């Protein structure tokens, strides 16, 4: 049962991920991204990480992809008819990525130890306790980072139109 679910979710995720890359229209890419995130959420559930499955759906599909769809619809782009890349570029890139993936997979299967879990570690209590003890400083730095990002977004997207004779810059 576990294996069947794993295969189903994996195929779903990879298929949707290739849809992101292959779709001509950015809106289809965004919806494909949503499907891929749902598949990933199923994989997280399969590994027993209920918290991260929830976060995946809430934050990724609820916030990030909605932002993508919003921008795509705001810009109102027409689908470009031009050929995005020739066959040689595609072949070279695919070959390079394939080679890179093989090396990565080899390294991963060697580097990560193989152990069977006894108790689930994905309890909210464990995570929050760690977040406020061992990872307190990274957590605080993250809050500062978010503040900087808010200021940066305001600075970037502010409209720069200055009325003549106006005092504000």
């Amino acid at each position, binding site marked *: 049962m576990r294996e069947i679910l794993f295969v189903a979710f994996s195929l779903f995720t990879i298929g949707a991920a290739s849809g992101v*890359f292959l779709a001509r229209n950015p809106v289809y890419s965004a919806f494909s991204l949503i499907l891929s995130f749902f598949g*990933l959420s199923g*994989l997280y559930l399969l590994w027993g990480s209920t918290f991260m499955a929830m976060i995946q759906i809430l934050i*990724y599909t609820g916030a990030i992809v909605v*932002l*993508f769809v919003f921008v795509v619809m705001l810009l109102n782009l027409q689908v470009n008819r031009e050929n*995005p890349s020739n066959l040689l570029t595609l072949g070279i890139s695919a070959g390079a*990525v394939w080679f890179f993936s093989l090396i990565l997979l080899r390294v991963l299967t060697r580097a990560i130890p193989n152990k069977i879990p006894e108790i689930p*570690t994905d309890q909210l209590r464990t995570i929050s306790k760690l977040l406020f003890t061992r990872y307190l400083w990274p957590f605080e730095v993250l809050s500062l980072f978010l503040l900087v990002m808010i200021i940066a*977004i305001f600075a970037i997207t502010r409209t720069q139109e200055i009325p003549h004779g106006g005092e504000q810059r």
Partner: protein
Amino acid sequence: MNFPTSLTYWSHFVAVAMFALGLLGFLLRKNTIVVLMCIELMLNAVNLLLIETSMRTNTPDGIILVVFVVTVAAAEVAVGLGIVLNLYRLKGSVNLDHFKSLQG
């Protein structure tokens, strides 16, 4: 050919395949928004690997790292799309080939 049959191996395979798809899209697509989506795809491949390893080796540190990654990814997308909006306002296009000069 003898394929490895463990679920761990195939989970790594899924993560690496997803990362490869994201990398291909990042290298080949011209639309800036789709390139940002492909970056998200790569981040999610890493998240999958982290969560799988964390649950298997019974260490919660990987999940903490994933929480950080999700936060940074959300901020990165917001800033990236803000830049895309501004570029569209400047150039009237989101094609990466049209952004050639550093000088605005």
